[in-house]
């Protein structure tokens, strides 16, 4: 199994997709954090909610890009035909699915770590330049950063499982974006408490963001550990579906 995972990691390292997304993730995270700090009033960003909004931006951006990375790489196996030599070398489709998921989880963690570091490196000096002290304890700040890395890693997990299930890159990416940015906000506005189970709500909970970011503050969000567990459950359900369907599929 370890050499299969190493091969999947080598696949990720030998195209420009991962370096490109890494640069994009850090740049967008830094830009988002800087814009929030510079364009918000000091009273807004000085509170706990504002502080969470600034410091969680790295994890959230990295998570969304890690989700896309997972989809693009696993569905891309079918698009480019690399699934053929992959399965000829390792015909156990379940093991291949697991290796792809593990590799994308690790890649997501790297994206998350780089983006969180970038966010921290920009946010604290900018906040200090505006004489804003973040109203969060050291433990809360650490929780936001650790949550950001975990969220990006788990997004890689979910993306890889989803891409393996759908197999068509364009359809899978479009469906993911549609769910995240159209379906979930709509359902959240219609169903009380839905954000406790939605991908958006779990994303905010894991990455330590403010509950308002999930679209509905009332009803709150689950604790980060429970949100991570739920997110992992969603990813595992997709992975099991991908593996089950994949066993009987013609390649």
């Amino acid at each position, binding site marked *: 199994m370890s*050499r*299969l995972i*190493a*091969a999947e990691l*080598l*696949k990720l390292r*030998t*195209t*420009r*997709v991962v370096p490109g997304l890494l640069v994009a993730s850090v740049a967008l995270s830094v830009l988002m954090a800087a814009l929030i700090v510079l364009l918000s009033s000091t009273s807004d960003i000085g509170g706990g909610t504002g502080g969470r909004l600034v410091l969680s931006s790295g994890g959230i951006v990295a998570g969304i890009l890690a989700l896309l990375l997972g989809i693009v790489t696993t569905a*891309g196996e079918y698009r*480019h*035909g*690399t699934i*053929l*030599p*992959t*399965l*000829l*070398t*390792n*015909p*156990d489709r379940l093991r291949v699915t697991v290796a792809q998921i593990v590799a994308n989880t690790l890649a997501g963690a790297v994206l998350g770590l780089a983006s969180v570091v970038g966010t921290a490196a920009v946010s604290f000096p900018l906040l200090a330049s505006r004489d804003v002290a973040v109203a969060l304890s050291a433990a809360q700040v650490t929780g936001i950063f650790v949550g950001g890395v975990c969220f990006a890693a788990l997004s890689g997990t979910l993306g890889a499982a989803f891409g393996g299930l759908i197999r068509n890159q364009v359809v899978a990416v479009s469906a993911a974006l549609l769910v995240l940015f159209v379906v979930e906000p709509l359902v959240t506005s219609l169903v009380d408490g839905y954000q406790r189970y939605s991908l958006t709500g779990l994303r905010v909970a894991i990455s330590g963001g403010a509950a308002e970011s999930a679209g509905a503050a009332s009803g709150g969000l689950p604790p980060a550990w429970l949100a991570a567990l739920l997110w992992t459950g969603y990813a595992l359900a997709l992975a099991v579906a991908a593996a089950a369907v994949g066993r*009987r*599929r*013609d*390649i």
Partner: protein
Amino acid sequence: MDAVIEVDSLTKRFGRTVAVDGLSFAVPRGSIVGFLGPNGSGKTTTLRTVLGLTVPTAGRAMVEGRPYAALPEPARVIGAVLDAAQFHPGRTGRDHLRVFAKAAGVSRSRVDVLLRLVGLDEAAGRRVRGYSLGMRQRLSLATALLGDPRILILDEPANGLDPQGIRWLRDFLRDRRDEGRTVLVSSHVLSEVAQVVDEVLVLHRGRLVAQGRVEELTAHPRQTLEDVFLDLTRETSR
């Protein structure tokens, strides 16, 4: 007969279309077997089923007595060149081989050996999107050879190769046979196949319509493999 590939009553349907219809044959060890048939005769579907990529509707395909998926180290048993894209265009030829060498547990030095063997050593650092069809075919062959397999399955391997490449491939296949290895080669270029194969399997509409040594099938004076092939597929079309 010591058969390395055995296909037994294999049937594959895609919806209402029967691609392979109760096909049975065996490929003897240490031979080059031509797998012939018109377009849509079921050749590729059969090869993909042998390789575990297509799930049969009925029957079975075995490699050295096991289904492909049950082979413990498949890359060391069987290598395949399929008539389909199998490269990420943004990955270099060398990196493509490194990925699958790692997956197969093959040393990195084997990658360089194979790049030289197929004549891609100078182009190995270029991304595959810039490769010609012939170069991609050579890279496919190098991928198939990573585990130094005992059996090769080649689906239209001469596609895109120039005359030198075709000559090289022909000599390479003969060398493999002389080493006691087995090759199952599908092709529609009958003149090429006739020069190198020991025996042929002829498929038409998913069924086996002839099997035998080339000299047996072309026993009549001045009759070529092409004549036999056209006769067989014409008769069964009626």
